């Protein structure tokens, strides 16, 4: 597009460079792009290097959790193609259901090991508390998502789990509008609302890891008795 409408956008055809910097632009678009660029410079969003202390197998459990979630979603999508009762009448469907079940088991397996590792590294240090919090919330939302899956199986398991769980949910008052015996409602929470929730929270979690970086090790000399000029300065944050 080389139309020069002179409305304040960067004129690309001029040799002298942009007439207005995007930082000064009052546009929402420019301001959002600028904020995203400064929060996530490309080489921080997709880094090709990591700190040298990242040298342990415990570090692979985050990515194992994420790819297990990917397989939960992929197998769930295949089940969705044919509907919620397909797996009872088709051997292919039953196999896909098995893949879905085992990918959920793998997801929780890797996620909990990842949590243990991050706990023992005290990975919340250095302004990473939101990273920790989004990780815990991802776990809790995943438990809810798994639950809605179990009551969507349309078999004996669903009947028993839902009639039992109703007492817990009802006692909190949530049963007034979140009816675990309502298959249609539970299925839609399982395949629409909770996956979107998990994707958003887990996505935020991963972005925070990219933003803050992997937490450095504890210092060998563990005690700093004189106040550092600013703990924030030690953390390398801008003054």
């Amino acid at each position: 597009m080389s139309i020069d409408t002179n409305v304040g956008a960067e004129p690309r055809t001029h040799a002298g460079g942009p007439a207005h910097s995007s930082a000064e632009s009052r546009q929402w678009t420019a301001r959002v792009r600028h904020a995203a660029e400064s929060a996530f410079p490309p080489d921080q969003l997709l880094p090709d290097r990591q700190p040298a202390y990242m040298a342990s197998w415990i570090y692979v459990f985050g990515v194992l959790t994420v790819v297990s979630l990917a397989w939960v979603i992929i197998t769930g999508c295949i089940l969705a193609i044919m509907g919620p009762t397909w797996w009872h009448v088709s051997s292919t469907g039953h196999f896909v259901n098995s893949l879905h079940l085992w990918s959920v088991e793998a997801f929780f397996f890797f996620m909990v090991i990842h949590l243990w590792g991050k706990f023992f590294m005290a990975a919340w240090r250095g302004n990473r508390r939101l990273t920790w919090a989004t990780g815990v919330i991802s776990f809790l939302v995943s438990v809810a998502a798994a639950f809605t899956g179990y009551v969507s199986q349309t078999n004996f398991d669903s009947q028993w789990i839902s009639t039992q769980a109703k007492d817990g949910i009802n006692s909190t008052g949530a049963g007034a509008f979140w009816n675990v015996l309502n298959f249609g409602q539970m299925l839609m929470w399982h395949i629409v609302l909770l996956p979107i929730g998990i994707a958003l929270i887990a996505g935020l979690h991963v972005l925070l890891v990219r933003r803050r970086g992997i937490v450095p090790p504890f210092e060998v000399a563990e005690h700093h008795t004189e106040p550092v000029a600013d703990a924030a300065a030690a953390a390398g944050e801008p003054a």
Partner: protein
Amino acid sequence: MSPDTKKPRRFKPDRDVKEWKGAYVPYDILKEAFVAFLAVAVLIVLLAVVFSSPDDPAITLKTWSVNSPVDFAQTAITELDGSSGTASYGPPYNSTPDAAQHIGFFEPAQWFGVHQPIDTAQDFVIGPLRTLPNQPVTQAALNVYQGASAAQQAAWTTAYEKAVANATDVNGRLHVPAGRYGPVGVIIGSLTAMSQTGGLDGTLLSEGGFYNTNYTKPLLFLADGTYLADKAGAQHLQGTQWGMMNETGNFPGQAWLWLYTMWYQVYPMNQSTNADLEVWGIMMILSVGLIFLPFIPGLRSIPRWTRVYKLIWRRHYRELAAAT
């Protein structure tokens, strides 16, 4: 959020960290993710091929009443006389007084109220029977019952409950000893027969319309009996069996629910009528505690005290020691 005046903040090793100014090594995160993706694919295919997944078929009201007509009838009379679990549940199904769980004054189920209204006598018994055509005996019995006073109805249902406690199953047919229970014998007998044909499953569901996907009524009716619970108990799925964690057969279940189900096994929850709310309260507090762990002194020091990190970062510490 940076304060205008820079007051030196004491460095706390469990909260703060000196950011890394040292060496970096090449690390291909996308290749790592791709390898992990393939590895998990192989893992889940192997598990699916070797172990498959469980699929115990759903129980219908038909199978229940055919296999256990006595339990069905014993449940049905409690639905008619309002003494069943569902009928006396309280919110969200009905407003039975003092039924909602509470901790002190905190009674959220009561506050939210009845939003899934169920009248067990009408919804589970009388309504379905009223849909049957060409059943003059049943319709007449219903007319007599509904035309009687509340006291008379209670006398009949009480007498039937006593009698049906000694009922027998003769080749799948319900046989209830004689008693002064008026039209109630015909009503419950008809409902049992209707259920044995499969008609009750369909009728209960279609009370919500042709395309009803809400199984509240048939599930509550089913759960009021002992047939479903006995099948679950045989599979170690009941609450007192840590059932929340378990799956049918020898399949792994939901091991991540271990702490949630554990509270139900310990005092005072294991004897409390408010156990569900109490356990939810405990788990909410612990969950919030886990989210805010970085702010909790002592707990957030456990990683430093236990020194597992010395194993995780042993190469880093070795290189540091070699450099100094």
